[in-house]
């Protein structure tokens, strides 16, 4: 018993079956995703087509890649608002390097390195100086976006070498290369977060930072590496986006950080840290992407889509709180 039980809203979810179901977030999402697919197939003739699914997959691939990094961070109790801006910056820097004659691998490496450096800066400011992650990454979000705009004066950079477009166009076994990259990252990091001794540390740190420190974990180093990973993956998403669009776009990924956060939280991650899975975040992205696609198919205005996404986020988290309360 503790004091904070005092005065809570006495709402509980009663049914044990329902509770179990809601508790395993991945399962809930999977069922909801199947329900949307079935429902939409009946409602719209165009929905259940390879072309539509391909469009969804390509559209969400960068979001998935960034969501992987964000989940890793959220689990550690961290947070990164700069991902959308880093994506844009990486996309413009790749384009700039290519246009200035750098080879494709060099351009890509340059952009990725930049992402890692921004992540490192975020990590140092948060862990060594102790600035709140929200504030620190709000700052780097603005700085990274600003640099992208300064470098390009706000214009998109086009006329990239044709070979650079390979990643954005290629298909392997009938699926877009972008989707393969995203899926591979999801699988690798999901497993690593479940079984890898390095990544398991993130759960301890997010669950109780002080105890983690006193248990001998290198808390600051691990958290900084998580920020670096988030920066790296955001930059990777930016490079792939540039390849798909064949341009460096300084305005790309606007408000993407909020979409990614919403998806990760819908997928079971918590802003308090210590919980969440990469698979859950992936399913969260898919879920939101499908809802948006369904609404487009049903000719719902894009403005309404924002309202629905927001409502889904709040409902998902509220439901989670109710389940937890029922546990006590």
């Amino acid at each position, binding site marked *: 018993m503790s004091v904070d*039980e005092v005065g809570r809203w006495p709402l509980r979810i009663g049914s044990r079956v329902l509770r179990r179901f809601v508790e395993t977030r991945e399962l809930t999402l999977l069922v909801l995703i199947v329900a949307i697919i079935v429902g939409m197939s009946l409602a719209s003739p165009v929905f259940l087509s390879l072309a539509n699914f391909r469009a969804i997959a390509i559209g969400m691939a960068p979001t998935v890649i960034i969501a992987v990094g964000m989940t890793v961070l959220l689990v550690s109790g961290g947070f990164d608002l700069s991902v959308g801006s880093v994506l844009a910056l990486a996309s413009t820097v790749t384009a700039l390097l290519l246009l200035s004659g750098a080879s494709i691998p060099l351009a890509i490496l340059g952009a990725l390195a930049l992402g890692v450096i921004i992540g490192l800066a975020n990590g140092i400011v948060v862990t060594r100086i102790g600035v709140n992650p929200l504030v620190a990454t709000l700052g780097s979000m603005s700085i990274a976006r600003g640099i992208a705009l300064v470098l390009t004066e706000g214009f998109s950079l086009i006329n990239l070498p044709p070979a650079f477009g390979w990643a954005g166009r290629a298909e392997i076994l009938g699926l877009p290369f972008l989707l393969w990259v995203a899926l591979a990252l999801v699988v690798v990091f999901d497993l690593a977060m479940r079984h890898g001794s*390095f990544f398991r540390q993130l759960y*301890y740190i997010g669950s109780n930072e002080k105890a983690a*420190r006193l248990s001998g974990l290198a808390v600051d180093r691990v958290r900084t590496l998580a920020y670096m990973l988030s920066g790296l993956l955001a930059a990777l998403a930016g490079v792939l986006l540039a390849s798909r669009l064949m341009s460096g776009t300084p305005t790309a990924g606007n408000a993407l950080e909020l979409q990614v956060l919403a998806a990760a939280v819908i997928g079971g991650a918590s802003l308090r840290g210590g919980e969440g899975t990469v698979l859950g975040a992936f399913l969260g992205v898919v879920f939101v992407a499908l809802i948006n696609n369904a609404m487009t198919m049903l000719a719902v205005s894009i403005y309404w889509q924002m309202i629905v996404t927001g409502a889904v986020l709040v409902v998902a988290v509220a439901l989670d709180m109710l389940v937890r309360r029922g546990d006590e």
Partner: protein
Amino acid sequence: MAAPLLELSDITKWYGTTRALGDVDFDLKRGEVHALVGENGAGKSTLLAILSGVVAPDKGTINIDGRAVTIDDPSRAQALGISTVFQELSLAGALTVAENVFVGRAPTACGVIRWSELRRRTQQILSPFGIEIDVGRPVDRLPAATRQLVEIAKALSLDARILLLDEPTSALTSDEVAALFDIITRLKTRGIGIVYVSHHMAEVFQIADRITVLRDGRRMTTRAVPETSIDDVVRAMVGRNLEIFAAATALVPGPVALAVRGNGAKGNSRHLELEIRFGEVVGLAGLMGSRRSELARSLVGLQRPPGGAAIEIKGRPTRLRCLRDAMTRGIAYVPDDRKAEGLFLSMSVTDNFVVTALRRFARLGWIERAAAKAAASEAVERFRIRVPSLAAAAGKLSGGNQQKLMLSKWLASDPAIIVIDEPTKGVDVEAKREIHKEVRRLAAAGKAILLISSDLPELFTISDRIVVMREGQIVGDLPTRLATEESVMALASGTGHKHEGEAA
């Protein structure tokens, strides 16, 4: 004769299929301290929760001044004059003492807080009890003991007639306990009734007028203090006689494992010499302000040794820059605050167990679940940690079991030297005994153990030697069999003559 201040009869409470309380009767007179004791899970917390309106009983009646009442929520409890000081403090750290005392009820003029009036009223509440605090200070800046007093002042400001104290001394040193008892005595003379929940038998016998023992949700007995003894009460709590633990063993200790060599920064006046040998338990006693925690933390690399002392591990001078330095040299630190510093409450028993040895359970960076589970399950058995399953969240365990899990977690890293801070704070008698046994077993296995405790009987039970600190110096170092509680207290408080055991 007037009706008692508070009277509970036939109180029954079920949680699902578990009966937390069954037909419990309890009463409290004006100006009485009625202690409620029992092991963890005996139903004390549930009874407090019912009285403070957090949970509703399934059956039974509650009378206050002879009138039947229902306490259906915490604000109702307050209106009835019942105030609770919970074990986990409920103060807003950044706000001042005065604001905390008058939380939500600060005097205002046209919606603006009248600060001077607020401070004056707070002083008014505090001064009759001889509590001297700057009421304009943020609560964060106060020592734990003072925070406890603020909490009590808050209860008093609500015109409480019934005060529920849940383990009020668990964070206090003996001086502070004395001050608290002084305040409790003054409250009694004002006719306030106090329900006092504690694991601490000596304190209960010192302050309580009557004692009620709960076991498994049943009331075992209610006795006036002069008519009973600690043995009787403990027997009623555990339902059998406890074998008295044989005071420290006389094994010949091994070579020196850990030593502190310090003459201090201020010339040679500061004395800080300490040796801990393999195979022995050294108990470290000292009042708050004795800087004994600083010494302990410096032994594990969490801070510099006080007064510039040097540390030697196995005879070699060593500088420990961080906890990991200490860990790689085989030193483990078991912190005193299991919830804030020791455990990962939302994570499983297995996860908690393996954290100190992630590398040991990993191959090529991959954790081997089976090995981790097997080791955790072995530890659970060995320490008799009662868990629903290895996958259960650590937060679901009782205090005693959490404490055992925390200790076992450190043994997973197989340390040779173990520093344990307050190993049995807020833990029931049975768990305490098991923890003591385990500490002795570790010493018998050749580990060097430094044990810090505010609980003197505990130090006498398990230490081979007792080292006393005062004001950052070691003022006494005596074999347990030559020490008495009185002599240790005298050294710790500086009232006695100086004992130079280490000069021998």
